């Protein structure tokens, strides 16, 4: 059984159908990329899984547990941690304190939480900046801090919402290395991404959304050759004639 199973998920905002009958799954240990043009419903799907939205129809199973109606804190307690497209670090708190908030979720004592937080900071390379105020970090470091904070909750599934957006190529590479390292720790990753050069090489599988519907799913190579996908991204006339 897959770690995360989304079946026939539909989410509407008034008359707008943001997700239309989407079915997808994420297996344990995988890195799954969720892509699609602007307005495809990636973030909506992401938010439904993370408990921010309640979908109208469909079901979300996580480790066999029905989490469809969970709120964000319940989703996190169940083992799903996330980052935000627009960073939501606790600006007035230090880097260490930000991560402490995450690590308290599964810590028995203050010392335990601190130890876990420092461990995560070392792992993500933020340790030298642990006493900085989060507001003083660069955008790349803020995104990394969100990842660190999420990791501190000891998740089974880590969901990254556009972790590379706004980063320069060097920062992007560093983020990719970090994601690979997280994956090696045995944490399953579901990531929404815009930057194709980034997501194609690191994903085990890709799910493509367009206008709220899933149009393709499979290995990166197969997906990038899929005429439906090329049509969605580039328009019909670029589909290679065969």
């Amino acid at each position, binding site marked *: 059984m897959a770690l995360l199973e989304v079946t026939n998920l539909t989410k509407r905002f008034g008359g707008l159908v943001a997700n239309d009958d989407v079915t997808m799954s994420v297996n344990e240990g995988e890195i799954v990329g969720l892509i699609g043009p602007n307005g495809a419903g990636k973030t909506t799907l992401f938010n439904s899984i*993370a408990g*921010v939205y309640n979908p109208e129809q469909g079901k979300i199973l996580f480790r066999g547990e029905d989490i469809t109606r969970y*709120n*964000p*804190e319940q989703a*996190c*307690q169940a083992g799903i*941690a*996330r980052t*935000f497209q627009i960073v*939501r*670090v*606790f*600006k*007035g*708190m230090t880097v260490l*304190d930000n991560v*402490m*908030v*995450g690590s*308290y*979720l599964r*810590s028995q004592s*203050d010392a335990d*939480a601190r130890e876990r937080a420092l461990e995560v900071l070392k792992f993500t390379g933020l340790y030298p900046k642990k006493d900085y105020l989060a507001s003083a970090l660069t955008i790349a470091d803020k995104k990394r801090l969100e990842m660190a*904070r*999420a990791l*501190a*909750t000891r998740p089974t599934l880590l969901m990254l919402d556009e972790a590379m957006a706004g980063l320069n190529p060097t920062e992007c590479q560093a983020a990719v290395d970090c994601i690979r390292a997280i994956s090696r720790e045995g944490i399953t990753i579901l990531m929404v991404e815009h930057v194709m050069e980034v997501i194609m090489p690191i994903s085990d599988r890709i799910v493509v959304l367009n206008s709220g519907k899933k149009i393709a799913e499979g290995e990166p190579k197969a997906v990038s050759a899929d005429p439906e996908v090329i049509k969605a991204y580039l328009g019909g006339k670029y589909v290679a004639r065969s």
Partner: protein
Amino acid sequence: MLPVAAAVIALAYPKVFSLPYPQHVGVLICMNALMAVAWNITGGYTGQVALGNTVFFGIGAYTSSLLLRDFGVNPWIGMLAGTILSMIAAVVLGYTTFRLRGYYFTIACIAMAEIVSAIVVNTRRLGGAVGVTIPIRDASLLNFQFHGTNKAPYYYTILTFLAVALFVVYRVERSKLGYYFRAIREDEDGARALGVNPARYKLIAFMLSALFTSVAGTFYAQYVMFIDPASVLAQPVSVSMCLMAVLGGLGTLWGPVLGAMALIGISEATRVTLGGTGQAVDLMIYGLLVIVFAVFQPTGLMGMLGKLKARKE
């Protein structure tokens, strides 16, 4: 080092100043500091601007006073009953208003406080608009009453309450509760994504805040020996707690204490120097100071001290 020095000064104060007036000012500072420390738990750490804490102050004052007047219950037990009632009120108030965010929560708090005040004013059983006079008992710690011109016993009583409150906040600051409170203030959605249940932790903060405010209410009643809605259930009571915490430094341990010292100091100094007509002038200076601080020093007196310290280094 600094807390030790502060403790020594606080303990020696009534010995050095043995006249009733400076002792009275000391009592006022400690009592207001206690209220500001309590307010700071919700307003400063959790970032919920609760302008209705006068409800808890009033519950504390009225519960002990009415129990004493009508049933002869010892004020210490009355104080305990007051804190329990206040915490229940905090749950009811919090449960109904915490779903509101930002300004709407503040408005709801003000409305709640006004409702409670209106109920008391119109209920004869609760003293109505006339208020409640606290019956005189023998002066003793057990009776929570000390007569005569020596106000030192009152001073040490309220100083003890303040010390306990500061100790509790100090512990909370360094625990899971403190981290969760600040996370909620900084970004509620961010906090939820890390498994923090904001409703639950806001409620805990509100209950703690209510507890200490209620204790201050009982103390006020036993100190002044007379309470009425205008003195313990009025909007300015809520506002002054907030002002002291803001002026001193929101979300800091010592900020509310500094704020209370500064505001009580200014208000008493202007009142004394400007005579009976000083009331309005001290409020004007008070208001002006708050505006100046909001513009130039949003982190309060604590922020200013931090900057001075940084410059020295």
